[in-house]
């Protein structure tokens, strides 16, 4: 291999600038120093959160099944959302700063995935204001929460609204 070719092969074919590299390295060092004092997420905390989430899903499923009014159903969803939020916050507090977000938000167009209500339920839903807790919940629903809700709504009968 002649010298020119040798030098060429030692060069990397990328375009990252020196300034960019220096900033990146400085940022990485800052993060490492800031990160050191933070507690690490333990398997115990993860297991506790998973157990809490499972318990909440079971409780909400049962409440949802026995709900006879839209208000009861909404309450069940609110309880679930609050519990999931708390579990998420607990995990985030102990997660390393560089971890990806605990849950990713999903585009608005993909959010309203629950089975559409029919008959009276549809009428009641149509009368809800935009700021209702249900709408607010659906606006802020995450992928994981939507999946959890779908688990017990897809095959259910329409809600019996008195």
């Amino acid at each position, binding site marked *: 291999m002649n010298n020119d*070719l040798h030098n*060429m*092969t*030692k*060069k*990397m*074919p*990328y*375009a*990252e600038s020196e300034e960019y*590299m220096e900033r*990146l*390295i*400085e940022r*990485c*060092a800052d*993060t*490492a*120093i800031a*990160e*050191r004092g933070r507690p690490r997420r333990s398997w115990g905390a993860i297991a506790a959160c998973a157990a809490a989430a499972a318990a909440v899903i079971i409780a909400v499923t049962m409440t949802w099944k026995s709900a006879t009014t839209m208000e009861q159903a909404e309450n069940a969803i609110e309880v679930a959302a609050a519990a999931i939020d708390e579990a998420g916050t607990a995990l985030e507090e102990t997660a*390393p700063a*560089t971890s990806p977000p605990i849950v990713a938000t999903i585009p608005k167009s993909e959010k309203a995935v629950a089975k559409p209500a029919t008959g009276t339920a549809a009428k009641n839903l149509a009368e809800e204001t935009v700021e209702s807790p249900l709408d607010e919940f659906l606006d802020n629903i995450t992928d994981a929460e939507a999946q959890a809700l779908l688990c017990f709504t897809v095959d259910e009968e329409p809600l019996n609204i008195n």
Partner: protein
Amino acid sequence: MNNNDRNLTARLRDKTTQESAFRELARDYGKPLYWHIRRIVVGHDDAEDALQNTFISIYRHIDKLADAEHLKAWVYRIATREALQILRRHTGLFQSIDTLEPVLTERLLAETSVDSEAAEVLFQQALLKLPTQQRIAFNMRYYDELSYDEIAEVTGKSVATLKTNYHYAVAKIKEYIHENT
């Protein structure tokens, strides 16, 4: 170990000088570590993540650095482990990281600078055809110019194995370049 590294190691182990010594280590080793990682993971985003994890791990475990241990080999070992962990994230269950070659080649071509020479790219493509362990051994010897003893400290492999790895890597690279020019 050179004097600078010996001095740096001493200051890293002293709580009062630890932070400034760590910043110095980041300045000295940041770029070589970035490129070492980038040659393994290929993509810039993955390299950035692995570099960040490397720095976090170095600073978190600085007290575990033994007196007799070579600082350079120690930081390269951490960087190599973090880079391999990033690669493993891209594999399926029970899938070897060696099967990622098409993905890495695609990433190489996507991130190649427009003004890079064709020979540079071809050489990188040839490298990606190598099994990962062979590629890492070759990179550390060829690009980082680490001694076989240092590479042995980083990888935990014997010097004889590393020499064989390097020899086979060179032969395969030459063969690939011959076939594709």
